[in-house]
Structure formats: structure tokens, C-alpha cells
């Protein structure tokens, strides 16, 4: 009897203390999260809602307060001409906008595809053991550390049509027959932007891929070696499937980044219709052309397009952000 009471006395209050402790922790957690949530609501949530609201108004840069609600007019409106023909106006009927959408998507997918392949090659090199590995890793961090604006300026000097070293190198090696105005010609402007972007962001891709490669247990390769599996087959049958989750996350990060590209194009190829992306066009309308509402409609649509592509990617690719076993 005595022991029984002692046991119950010893055991019963315990869950109560634990739940009180848990409750105290959950309460504290709420207070701890509050400042961050308020900050994010003010700096991200509210401006997003206001930008969307502006896209349904006739706001201009000089008259934000007096903006009138005009419905979907910025997106699509029509006019019936005297002849009876219907003329479509607005963002959805604007060829300049669809050109920018196409440029953005083309840029994003091309650059990320190159970065994924080149990043994999660099990661495989860094995953091998050889003398000077630390040096290579330090070297590839340099493009990553250089500010985008600085790299845009550096490369526009190297790509200069008259005094650029790349034209000189290309002619010396016999790759170019004449000097090319890389950033000024509409055929080569996109190539120039792609070169700079791939140079700058492949290191990021390589480091994320490398982290994935290092999680693959070494004994799998030893087993494959004993079974006499060819190295190329090892890559496609072992490495690629196992590194896939890490690669998919790296690709989505890069893709989201590439889809919003602004600074590189703004500096490297200003005023070139061949490289004008959604972000560049939207900012131009917002602040340079004094079409604030129209620019807001562009940024809203940009947001929707990126959200849509992201959801499709996550859904098709079964991406997991928790890094699997972390």
C-alpha cells in the first residue's frame, strides 16, 4: 500500500509538469516568433498586397494617393473601332511583355541547364582526391563572391568590341574571324548575358552538388568496382540517382533566382530588346516611363508566373526541402 502510493505520487504529477513545461515553451515560442512575423508582414506581405492593388488602379508615380480603381483595365481591355473591328489593349495583349516573358524563360532554363551540367563536372572534380584541391575550391569561390554589378562591368570590359580581351583571344586562337560587338548586337546579347551568369553562378551549383556527392557512402562504389561496373555506368546508375534530391533543390534555387534576374541585364545589355526580362521591363514602366499601375500589373503577373512554374517544378520533381535525413 505504502509503496503503491509512493509510486503513484512519484509518477502521476510527472505528465502534468511535462505538459506545463511544453505549454510554457509553446507560449514562449509564440512570443519569440512574433517580431519576425511582424517584420515579414510589414516588409513583404503588405507591399505585395499593395503592388497587386496598384495593378487594378490608374496610379501614376506622381499620384499614388489619388489612384482610382479601374478593374482589369491594365491587364486587358478592348475598344470597338468605327469599322467594327475590336482592338485589344493592355498587358496581356502587349507584345513587349510577351517578348520579356519569353526572354526570361529562355534565359532561366538555358542558364540553369548549363550550370547544372558544369556544376556537376566541377563537383565531381572537387570530390576526387588530388593535390591542390583546396586551391581549386578557393578559386571557384571567387566568381561567387564578386558582386553581380562588378562582374557585369568586368565582363562588359572583357567583351568590349574594340579593346576587349575575349575578341583578341578568339582571333588569336582562330575561333573568331572578326571582332564581335557582343553586348550591342541583338544576336549575341543573350549569349553574353548567359556567359556572365553561368560564370558567376556555376560555383554555387557546384558546391550544392558537392554536398550531395559527399553524402553518398563510399562502399557503394567499392562494391560496384568489385562487380566491374564501368565508371560511366557507375555515374548514371549510382551517382546521379543518389545525388538527385540535392541537385533538384539546387536547381529550384537557381531557377527562382534566374527568373527574377535584373541587375546583370540592367548593366550588361541596357536597352537591348533581345535580353529585356520581366523584371527589367516592370521596373522601367514603374519608374522610368511613369506607368506605375501598368508596371504593377507586370510585377503581379511576374509573381504569378514564377509561383506557377515553381509549383509545377516541385510537383513534377517531388522536391523535398528538408534534405532527406537532416
Amino acid at each position: 500500500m505504502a509503496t503503491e502510493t509512493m509510486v503513484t505520487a512519484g509518477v502521476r504529477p510527472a505528465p502534468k509538469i511535462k505538459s506545463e513545461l511544453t505549454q510554457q515553451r509553446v507560449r514562449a515560442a509564440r512570443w519569440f516568433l512574433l517580431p519576425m512575423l511582424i517584420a515579414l508582414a510589414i516588409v513583404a506581405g503588405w507591399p505585395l498586397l499593395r503592388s497587386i492593388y496598384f495593378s487594378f488602379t490608374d496610379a501614376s508615380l506622381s499620384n499614388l494617393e489619388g489612384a482610382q480603381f479601374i478593374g482589369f483595365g491594365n491587364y486587358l481591355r478592348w475598344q470597338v473601332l468605327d469599322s467594327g473591328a475590336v482592338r485589344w489593349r493592355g498587358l496581356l495583349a502587349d507584345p513587349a511583355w510577351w517578348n520579356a516573358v519569353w526572354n526570361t524563360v529562355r534565359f532561366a532554363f538555358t542558364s540553369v541547364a548549363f550550370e547544372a551540367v558544369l556544376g556537376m563536372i566541377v563537383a565531381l572534380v572537387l570530390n576526387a582526391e588530388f593535390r591542390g584541391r583546396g586551391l581549386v575550391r578557393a578559386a571557384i569561390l571567387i566568381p561567387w563572391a564578386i558582386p553581380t554589378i562588378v562582374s557585369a562591368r568586368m565582363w562588359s570590359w572583357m567583351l568590349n568590341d574594340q579593346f576587349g580581351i575575349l575578341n583578341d583571344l578568339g582571333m588569336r586562337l582562330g575561333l573568331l574571324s572578326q571582332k564581335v560587338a557582343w553586348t550591342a548586337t541583338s544576336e549575341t546579347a543573350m549569349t553574353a548575358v548567359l556567359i556572365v551568369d553561368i560564370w558567376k553562378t556555376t560555383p554555387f551549383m557546384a558546391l550544392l552538388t558537392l554536398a550531395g556527392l559527399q553524402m553518398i557512402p563510399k562502399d557503394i562504389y567499392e562494391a560496384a568496382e568489385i562487380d566491374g561496373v564501368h565508371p560511366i555506368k557507375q555515374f548514371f546508375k549510382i551517382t546521379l540517382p543518389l545525388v538527385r534530391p540535392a541537385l533538384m533543390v539546387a536547381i529550384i534555387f537557381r531557377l527562382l533566382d534566374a527568373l527574377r534576374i535584373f541587375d546583370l541585364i540592367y548593366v550588361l545589355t541596357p536597352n537591348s530588346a533581345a535580353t529585356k526580362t520581366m523584371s527589367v521591363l516592370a521596373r522601367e514602366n514603374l519608374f522610368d516611363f511613369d506607368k506605375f499601375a501598368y508596371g504593377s500589373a507586370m510585377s503581379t503577373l511576374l509573381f504569378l508566373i514564377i509561383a506557377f512554374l515553381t509549383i509545377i517544378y516541385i510537383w513534377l520533381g517531388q522536391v523535398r526541402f528538408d534534405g532527406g535525413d537532416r
Partner: protein
Amino acid sequence: MTATFDLWKFTKWALFYLLVTFIVVVSVFPFYYAIITSFKSGTALFQIDYWPTSFSLDNYTAVLSTGSFPRNLLNSIFISAMTVLLALFLAVTASFALSRVRFRGRGLLLLTILAVSMFPQMAVLAGLFELIRFMGIYNTPWALIFSYTIFTLPFTVWVLTTFMRDLPVEIEEAAIVDGATPWVIITRVFLPLMWPALVTTGLLAFIGAWNEFLFALTFTANNDTRTVPVAIALLSGSTQYEIPWGRIMAASVIVTVPLVVLVLIFQRKIVSGLTAGGVKG
């Protein structure tokens, strides 16, 4: 037989080192070329050289003594440092809650934070512009410190959460048994352990703020309030066609060298922080 085998081995070795050399040269060359260009002045600038030929500090003295570049440097340092402090201050408690306490909706909250950090900044630009003008901080450093929170805060929260989740639970249990409140646990138990993580995250957030261009271009209006990337982007000569390449390269080297040095010193930490947070390039 052995000879051919060795030849094959040698070829493989040579090809591998050729690839390694190629990677290193491509990575480093543009920065190297910017440095040698920055030391050229006058007509030497327009001669294409692959090796350093002249050593003139004209461009550096021109950049640092004329115009508002020194002021822009100070702006960038102040804005980036304040942004980092603000983000770390808000992120430490939030990431404790997200990593060590179980509550409903935690996963959803983490995904939302990740989504905000990958947000296209263009989508909020119009609304932020209105808000910044309303708050009366347009064309001041505070406009940038305020707006940079949108990408530094979610990023720091995300990385610190992954760091804190890996800390052993026993330390915390001992503190709980001693009757420590969550606040005491954070400040007395976790903070001392988190210095390396805070340095790494702070450094990455600093680089992000230092390199930011879109907000800095939009929310500042004159030479004295600009940050370094905007100053470099807008650096131009007396006419439209006369681009001062020498001065641009000198300014570029000045803003890049500290970053490269920091990144090389903190190499390992940065790589682990990058892989934990997936920061943008």
C-alpha cells in the same frame, strides 16, 4: 603491356589536371584582368595585355579623391552592418522557436519563410516604394536597411534553424531541469554555442546586402545616398561614349578585394552555410 598501361594512366592524369587548370583559370581570370586593368592609365588602357605591364595608381586616386565614391563605401558598410544586426537580432529567437519547440503549423511556417526568401523582389517593389515614401525614409540609408530585411531575415532564420536543430538536446535538458526559462536557455546556453553559426550567417547576409542592386537603385536618388553597386553601375565619363574603364575597374577591385579575402578566410564555414541555406549567388 605495362608501358601502355602507364601511358593510359598518364593521359588520364594529364587530362584531369588540364581540366583542373581550366576551371581555375576561368574562375580567376576575369578578376585578375580587372586588377591589371585597374593599374593601367592613359592609352595603356587600350592595349590588350595578358600580363601586368604597368603599375599606376592613377585610377585609384581618381576614384577615391573625386566624386562621391568614399561616401558610397561608407553607406554600403553602414547599411550592410545594420541589416545584418537587425536580421540576426530578430532571427535568433525565431529560429529557437522553429528548431527546438514543437507546435502546430511549424512546417508550414518554415516553408513560408523559405518562399519569402526566394521571392521575386520585383513583386513587392511598387508597394515598398509607397511604404518607404509614406514612412519618410526615401533616399536615406534606413530605406535600404528596412527593405533588405525582406531577404536577409528569412535567410538567417532558415540557416540558424538548421544549425540549432543539430545542437544536442542534452544541453537544453540540463538547463530545463535547473529551471531555466526559454529566454535564459537562448541567451545563456545557445548563444555561446552559436557564435560560429552567427558569424557565418552574418557574413552571408552581409554579402547579400553589400551586393544588392534593385532596391538600392530604386530607393536612393542622389550620389551621396547611393551604395557601392549603384555607384559602380552608374559611373560614367563626361560624355555618353567615354566610359572610364580604368576607374570602374579600380572601384570594382576596391569593393571586391575585402569580400574575396573574407570569403577565402571563412571558406569552410561559408560552404557549410551555403549548403544549409541555399543562398543565392
